[in-house]
């Protein structure tokens, strides 16, 4: 993936965040990683651009999104992102324990890039993230730039 892309992880389980980060690194993913502990935090970052990272007016991101999170759940986060004409370009990979077929359907309908189920087995979970990491570490994967000025004008008006 382009070196300047930032991987955003929205996940309330701190143990899962650590496991994901560690296995992405193990797969030679060298991108910056930012973590958010619930849906509200990630939306604040994306919509209001709370200054958690240095921006120069343009950034490129890929989001790993959990579904069950406090405050705002992953479904609402995805909906808001894909409704925004600028943010919708961000690839969103859902990473969840929810294995309901109806949820797989609903999230693809809303525009997620991929839907991954976290295996309950620790080793399998590690392996799944390593596979994801192997893919993300590919030089040819390109993530688009998000224009930070003038984006999300509708969403930002909501308090």
């Amino acid at each position, binding site marked *: 993936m382009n070196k300047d892309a930032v991987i955003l992880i929205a996940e309330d389980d701190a143990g899962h965040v650590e496991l994901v980060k560690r296995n992405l690194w193990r797969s030679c993913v060298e991108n910056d990683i930012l973590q958010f502990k619930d849906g509200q935090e990630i939306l604040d970052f994306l919509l209001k651009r709370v200054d958690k990272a240095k921006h120069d007016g343009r950034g490129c991101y890929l989001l790993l999104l959990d579904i069950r999170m406090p405050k705002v759940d992953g479904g609402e986060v995805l909906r808001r992102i894909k409704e925004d004409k600028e943010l*919708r*370009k*961000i*690839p969103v990979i859902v990473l969840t324990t929810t*294995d309901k*077929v109806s949820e*797989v*359907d609903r999230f*693809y*309908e809303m*525009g997620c*890039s*991929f*839907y*991954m*189920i976290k295996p309950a087995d620790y080793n399998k979970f590690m*392996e*799944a993230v390593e*596979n*994801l990491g*192997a*893919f993300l*570490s*590919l*030089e*040819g*994967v*390109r*993530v*688009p*730039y998000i224009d930070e000025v003038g984006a999300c004008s509708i969403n930002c008006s909501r308090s």
Partner: protein
Amino acid sequence: MKKEGVILIAEDDEGHFELIKRSLQRAGVCNEILRFADGRETLDFLFVRGDGPKREHDKEYLLLLDIRMPKIDGVEVLEKVKKDPELKKIPVVMLTTTDDPRMIERCHNLGCSVYIVKPVEYQDFEEAVRKIGLLLSVVEVPQIDGMPRTKGVVK
């Protein structure tokens, strides 16, 4: 992706297709693979029309899509697929030699899942496809049911 799922490869270059197919299989992907030599064949299949092979109901599909193809290019295919309320659920992986930021932005705007530039070197290309295969082995893909809800007609 479950083993019953079908991987669709829209690729006009036969050599590239063979390489993609072989590398996916090497990554342990044992899904059925179908090839389409241009955008029109791909759309005919997805929108269930014409004389060629046709999409079946209640099956999982994933599309690897080249951009530069005869008749109808990959961007138009992507646009038609993502405008259909049913077909839009199909994950579309752009796999192309076109390394242009405007094209990357356009395809993501239209709703591609991911955009990958084909490496020039043969071995790197193989390795890239192998890693795409590793990803496919750990993601869920939705079933596409019934008829498309739009006609996807090309002007």
